[in-house]
């Protein structure tokens, strides 16, 4: 769907990297033309009055496991980078090409190419052909690549192609079949557990190999104090290392798993409270680059099981924005930084011409009331499954309107 008529959103609080600017934004042919205090509608424009609410770039959700449009639109997500862990995995150019077109016109899906065939961590997949077919980055999938030789060759190859490698940081030997972080909670529950150091080990190795290869490394989820320290140190040395987190790991600790609540069974598992505090500090000091939903809707057949037998993952697309705005209310970050984490940084990693309100970029826009209160209720969710660990929690921040390429979307209004 092409934008038929130019659009001007007036009376908005425009969220820009430099700060919040009162004014209007004008777009046509799917592209932002101008924004600021001195911008106004021209003749023939469709005019929307924002009534003083926030106008922000649409969220770019880096690393989802399912394309779930209603949930994405509810949550203000206009672009989603899909993990290669599909059935079958995204390890062939044809599959990547199909996925790249699958969301249009009202959602851009950016496929992440499987780093290795079948995501088995052994043989490199056809990365260049998948890039040609529309892959914006490469991902190791839900697991890390155990063989350091394979990982080095992957990083070298991706560096040559200019693709970011998105990794999962858990040492497979240590993590094994664990479903919890080693500590008092896992011990009391009798859950198979792995030490939190499984993450630091994986990060340390991957940073060393990325430095050797001169590759760009994005660690999709960092969740431990030691992990953040390693990323912080790598950034200080000027390496092209970035990292992300999902709201579960900065909102919850392993306390949420008592009574064997499988909606809190995640990968990596929820950590100790000290690690959660370290996550908040890392978000505040700039160590964290991306907040993503990790959207992984799972029905009762995957979740209504004993904890260790349940599959990990949570439906996070609908709560991503509200949880991130919670960080603003708690004084951890400000609103421009929130949208750097949600939109600008992930768009930059993917090389997508979006994620910032700026002339020349795509008009992916979210009109947001950051204070609107609501209660997360799994029975009322838009997602294909209701597995949220935040059920019945009160929160604030709702999407009032969403535009993809200047075209208003029905949902999320």
């Amino acid at each position, binding site marked *: 769907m092409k934008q038929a008529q130019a659009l001007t959103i007036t009376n908005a609080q425009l969220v820009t990297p430099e700060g919040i600017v009162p004014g209007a934004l004008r777009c046509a042919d799917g592209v932002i033309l101008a924004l600021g205090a001195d911008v106004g509608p021209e003749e023939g424009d469709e005019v929307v009055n924002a009534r003083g609410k926030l106008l922000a770039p649409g969220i770019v959700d880096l690393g989802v496991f399912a394309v779930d449009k209603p949930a994405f639109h509810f949550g203000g997500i206009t672009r989603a980078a899909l993990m290669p862990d599909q059935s079958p995995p995204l390890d062939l150019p044809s599959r990547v090409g199909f996925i790249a077109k699958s969301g249009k016109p009202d959602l851009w899906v950016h496929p992440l190419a499987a780093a290795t065939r079948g995501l088995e961590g052994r043989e490199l997949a056809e990365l260049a052909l998948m890039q040609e077919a529309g892959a914006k980055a490469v991902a190791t999938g839900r697991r890390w690549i155990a063989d350091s030789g394979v990982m080095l060759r992957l990083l070298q190859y991706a560096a040559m192609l200019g693709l970011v490698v998105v990794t999962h940081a858990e040492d497979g030997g240590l993590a094994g079949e664990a479903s919890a972080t*080693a500590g*008092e909670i*896992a*011990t009391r529950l009798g859950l198979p557990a792995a*030490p939190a150091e499984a993450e630091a080990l994986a990060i340390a190795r991957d940073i060393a190999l990325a430095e050797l290869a001169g590759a760009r490394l994005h660690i999709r989820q960092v969740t431990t104090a030691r992990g953040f320290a390693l990323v912080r140190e790598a950034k200080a040395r000027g390496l092209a290392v970035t990292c992300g987190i999902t709201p579960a790991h900065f909102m919850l600790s392993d306390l949420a798993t008592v009574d064997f609540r499988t909606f809190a069974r995640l990968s990596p598992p929820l950590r100790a409270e000290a690690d959660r505090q370290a996550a908040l500090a890392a978000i505040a000091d700039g160590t964290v680059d991306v907040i993503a939903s990790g959207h992984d809707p799972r029905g009762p057949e995957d979740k209504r099981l004993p904890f260790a037998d349940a599959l990990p993952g949570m439906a996070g697309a609908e709560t991503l924005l509200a949880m991130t705005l919670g960080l603003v209310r708690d004084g951890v970050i400000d609103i421009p930084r929130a949208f750097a984490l949600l939109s600008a940084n992930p768009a930059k990693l993917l090389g997508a011409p979006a994620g910032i309100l700026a002339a020349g970029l795509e008009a992916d826009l979210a009109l947001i009331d950051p204070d609107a209160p609501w209660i997360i209720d799994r029975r009322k969710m838009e997602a294909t499954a209701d597995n949220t660990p935040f059920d019945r929690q009160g929160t604030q921040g709702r999407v009032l309107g969403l535009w993809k390429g200047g075209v208003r979307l029905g949902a999320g209004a």
Partner: protein
Amino acid sequence: MSTKGMALMTSTSSRAPEGRFPPGRLAFPHRDLTGIGKLARHEILYLLDQAQQWVALNRQSAKHTDLLAGLTIINAFFENSTRTLLSFEIAGKRLGADVVNMHAATSSVKKGETLIDTAITLNAMRADAIVIRHGSSGATGLIADKVDCPVLNAGDGQHEHPTQALLDALTLRHALAERGEGAEDFTGLTVTICGDILHSRVARSNILCLTALGAKVRVCAPPALMPAGVEAMGLEVFHNFDAALDGAEVVMMLRLQSERMSGQFIPSPREYRHLYGLTTKRLALARPDALVMHPGPMNRGVEIDSEVADMAGRSLITRQVEMGVAIRMACLDVLTREARGVEGWA
């Protein structure tokens, strides 16, 4: 004749001993027995007291009462078991209930039926109590949420095995009373638990039960078999068995699974015996009259030597089996009181 005695027992079982516990249901307000972690000290003591009458009954030649006549108890065992299953079956039958055993090996679980579906099926058959053993931690609680009758945990993964901890406490209570050291609980008693603490639900339930009753608990295992953060459960951690035995009044040995002795956790059985085997020589490091326990089945010559396991007056291992039936009778009695319409419980 014994029927008269039975009638007397039936009436005593519906009433808590005067003064010690709150009246009726308040003495044990739980519908299920999923773990010791959910019980308060006085609730544990209540179950131990209630088991006393069944110890007496089980020592008679006619070991039967019709207390639970007409009730159906299903023992759903998703994991292999001989002694626990037998113990629950005998307990149910001695109370006059109809007892049915479901073995996972011969059930539709193997055909892909989910645990919840199995629970719903058992519920539809109108069981009056379901006893569950399952290989996953938390499985019993999951089933308890889906059925209308009391659920008893007979071991869930590495989480809990509450009736084992209760029977161990009952065994200890008897043994201490015989020595003239009997008290209401185990305040000040030093108990050393040695073996695979990491994978043991028996260890977790016993740690919770013994500490709730005031005992000083020591756990001993090689680092790879010791769970992280276990010291937060209010105990002392040892890796050296000799040090852990020093002055101990009770030594509780755990079974080491043979698959953990083939290089993954322990280089070999004989190396395990060298470090953690309870020999007569080692037992001498504990208090001179220290008691020895083992939940069974034993690996004789590995974690425990035969001379120790069979030591008259010191080894409580066969006594544990005896108390197991009594404690399970008490649990089945208490948990079915509401359904049976017992005064003060319905």
